[in-house]
């Protein structure tokens, strides 16, 4: 049996995995990375709009800082986020953007003087400061108080991924391309790496490691209409789930992006609205201000997507052969702006719709976009259930995003988590307690088990077609577990998915070839996808409240009293299981820096947690005390919820801004 030995095994060649790989390698550890595709083709490349970090360089970003970013993130999450993690994140995000700048990312830069922008449908002239000239620029995004989204035109993810991937090459980190992790090797307490399959030759072998990182991205392909790439099938989520030991957190939290082009679902960035684009209905009417007078088109994604669907239900959609849609109007931004700041959008509109977005409105409708749920970890990125198993990026439930992530916070999370978790994995490998002898026998057992399973699958004379089962699953998810959810639909969804899961045990494969074989791949993946799908549907059915992207028509209120808790899903160790076991992890209001309240957009009524009023008064007391003592924002933050100890030492420290020179804030 072929076995590769390494210190850190990184499953996933997107931004999160690669950044973590660099961190561990720089600390002197052996690192091996795996990816289904060449790493530069990972879906991180598709991120357009940008990355949030409170640099406060542009005039509309002035006054921005970690505190504002923190509040936006927690409100965006509808209080589902882990606030310690959110604090770690907002403090590291500026460092991450600056690191990428030092590595070569061509961030768009501030130009001094006047420039015209569109805000709330009107032309406005902004004047940028001379001292900011040449610093990294920010644009507006939904759900944020300040302009905070750093960008490279609208090809941000591409530019970031190429930068990081080139650093991986510089650091001589080996990436096994077209290699898929099939199962984690573990003994019930500790993870020792993964069984992997070479997608070209079909060879199955073991990669053994002290620390294993799941950085496999999202699971959008569980839905029919999604902005995600075809490889976003949640296979990393499945790795953890199938151990039966490491749970997934909050899988029912699925984000729908307001502006997928219709009907293909290809994304046009939130930057379109951030830069001043408007949503219009069948009458050409701009309808968002009717629903959301404060934030309008720039409320958080969950809210805008729901308002759009609501508006379509009222008969205000534009009918078409494929169903109804709404319009995104960016004509008012002008040709120059579109050609310079939204060029990917322009290309997408030209190629896939045959229209020029400087002259025509873009047909859009919400599409599945982001998987908030993932491998549940603690703030170091490690699974508390399976030692040596780490997760980062979209595949993780770290939990930065709670029930709704803000635009621009995801690519930011990937690099920030990569930086942080990379350090913690290196610490883990440094610790002599973790240099246990690698149990080769165990690895052999796992390799044999996976080989046998694939062999059975390949030769099983089954009746079902893997591709069609997948399409059916996607239909069920889109129909029953979408933007608006209710008991009956979800119940229907769960039963349908259970039925499909059972059917998936009877897949037949026409080409018996064990090497590069797309049908075989589809067959073993669809079984895993169905487990994830049913986990989402079941979690959504049980959660009888509405929070962030999870919206129950029969329970429209957020209910902190009953549901301020994270869903944990475990897959039972039983061949016939068709449902996960759910447990819940409460969030502690008494330790929150920002106790639950109104988000500033969306519904205003919610059921309070009994601890909230007490925590609020306590916060008031602390605030008054710190103020009388003459403490600054750092002192207040420290008094409310100290977090710095959670960060790796090398990443601690304040962030310099034009208005906050470091000399004064050592």
């Amino acid at each position: 049996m072929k076995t590769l030995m390494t210190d850190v095994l990184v499953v996933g060649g997107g931004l999160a995995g690669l950044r973590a790989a660099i961190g561990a390698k720089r600390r002197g550890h052996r690192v091996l990375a795996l990816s289904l595709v060449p790493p530069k083709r990972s879906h991180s490349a598709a991120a357009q709009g940008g990355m949030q970090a409170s640099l406060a360089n542009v005039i509309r970003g002035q006054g921005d800082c970690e505190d504002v970013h923190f509040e936006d993130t927690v409100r965006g999450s509808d209080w589902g986020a882990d606030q310690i993690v959110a604090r770690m994140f907002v403090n590291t995000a500026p460092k991450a953007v600056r690191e990428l700048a030092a590595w070569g990312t061509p961030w768009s830069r501030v130009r001094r003087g006047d420039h015209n922008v569109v805000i709330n449908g009107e032309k406005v002239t902004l004047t940028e400061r001379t001292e900011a000239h040449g610093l990294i620029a920010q644009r507006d995004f939904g759900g944020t108080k300040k302009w905070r989204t750093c960008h490279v035109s609208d090809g941000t993810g591409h530019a970031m991924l190429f930068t990081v991937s080139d650093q991986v090459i510089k650091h001589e980190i080996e990436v096994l391309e077209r290699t898929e992790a099939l199962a984690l090797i573990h003994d019930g307490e500790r993870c020792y790496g993964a069984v992997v399959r070479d997608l070209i030759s079909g060879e199955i072998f073991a990669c053994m490691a002290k620390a294993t990182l799941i950085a496999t991205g999202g699971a959008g392909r569980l839905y029919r209409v999604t902005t995600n790439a075809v490889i976003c099938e949640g296979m990393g989520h499945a790795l953890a789930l199938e151990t039966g030991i490491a749970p997934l957190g909050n899988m029912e939290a699925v984000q729908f992006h307001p502006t997928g082009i219709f009907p293909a679902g290809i994304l046009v960035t939130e930057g379109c609205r951030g830069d001043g684009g408007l949503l219009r209905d069948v009458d050409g009417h701009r309808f968002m201000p009717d629903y959301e007078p404060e934030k309008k088109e720039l409320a958080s994604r969950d809210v805008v997507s729901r308002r759009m669907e609501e508006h379509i239900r009222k008969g205000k959609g534009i009918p078409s052969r494929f169903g109804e849609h709404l319009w995104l109007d960016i004509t008012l931004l002008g040709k120059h702006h579109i050609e310079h700041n939204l060029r990917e959008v322009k290309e997408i509109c030209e190629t896939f719709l045959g229209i020029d977005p400087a002259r025509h409105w873009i047909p859009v409708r919400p599409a599945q976009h982001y998987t908030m749920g993932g491998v549940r970890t603690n703030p170091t990125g490690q699974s508390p259930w399976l030692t040596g198993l780490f997760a980062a990026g979209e595949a993780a439930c770290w939990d930065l995003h709670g029930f709704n992530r803000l635009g621009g916070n995801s690519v930011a999370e990937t690099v920030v988590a990569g930086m942080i978790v990379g350090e913690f994995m290196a610490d883990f490998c440094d610790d002599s307690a973790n240099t246990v002898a690698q149990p080769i026998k165990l690895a052999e057992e796992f390799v044999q088990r996976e080989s046998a399973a694939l062999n059975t699958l390949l030769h099983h004379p089954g009746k079902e077609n893997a591709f069609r089962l997948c399409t059916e699953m996607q239909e069920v998810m889109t129909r029953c577990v979408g933007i608006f959810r209710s008991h009956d639909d979800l119940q229907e969804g769960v039963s349908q998915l259970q039925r499909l899961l059972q059917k998936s045990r009877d897949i037949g494969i026409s080409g018996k070839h064990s090497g590069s074989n797309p049908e075989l791949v589809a067959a073993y993946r669809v079984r895993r996808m169905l487990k994830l799908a049913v986990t989402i549907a079941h979690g959504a059915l049980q959660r009888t409240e509405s929070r962030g992207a999870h919206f129950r028509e029969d329970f429209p209120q957020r209910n902190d009293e009953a549901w301020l808790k994270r869903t944990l899903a475990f897959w039972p160790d039983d061949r016939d299981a068709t449902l996960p076991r759910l447990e819940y992890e409460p969030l502690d209001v008494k330790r929150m820096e920002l106790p639950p309240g109104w988000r500033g957009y969306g519904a205003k009524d919610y059921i309070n947690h009994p601890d909230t009023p007490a925590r609020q008064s306590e916060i008031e007391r602390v605030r008054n005390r710190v103020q009388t003592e003459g403490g600054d924002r750092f002192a207040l933050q420290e008094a409310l919820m100290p977090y710095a100890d959670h960060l790796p030492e090398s990443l601690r420290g304040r962030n310099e801004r034009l208005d906050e020179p470091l000399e004064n804030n050592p």
Partner: protein
Amino acid sequence: MSRPITLQILRYNPQNAASRPRLQSYTLDKADGMTLFIALNEIREHQDATLQFDFVCRAGICGSCAMMVNGRPRLACRTLVNELPDTVVLAPLPFFELIGDLSVNTGKWMRGMSERLQTWLHAREELPDLRRIEEKMEPEEAEAVYEMDRCIECGCCVAACGTAQMRQDFVGAVGFGKIARFRLDPRDTRTDGDYYELIGDDSGVFGCMSLLACHDVCPKSLPLQTQIAFLRRKMVSQALQPAVAQTAN
């Protein structure tokens, strides 16, 4: 109502000793907005589950799906079947290692090219203080770098290149584009002398026959023609300089 299209696909699985290259035809109905991504998946789902091809983003962003469409390299996901004739031949990109049918191993070649040309920023400072305000850069400079940074390593330029068909070690327009990108970047400390070491020979810029098919087929419309011409002039002047000047620069 809808007209059928016939895709003649070059099929060959080099891993299977019994496999021989052959053209296989598949016919399906055209539809509005149908791209080759949709068409090929429909064939795989309903006609032939063994067909191999690569797609990732299906939005023209990741560069996975380059293939020869009637002899011309292009991104399949951005090719609308309505714009194609009723019979179309699809073949894998030449030059790259064939995985099977329409799937080729561009990733492996690109990594080799990157290692050889050191396509990463050679910065002044290895580990800058990340707490400090970033170094400034002119907005136009950043835009110019991004213009070249938009390359998606799809391989179309290499597949269309006359030199590459004759020299396996040719770095191709993609390689020149990378060098041009770092040359434009004020944060990179390398000199023309350094770049000359990397591309100043026949496997580099002097191997280019200026046929510039690369420029025409680039799906991202990178200004390859101007950049390659410029790079050549710079490298020629390097070649003409005495060796001392190169290192002392």
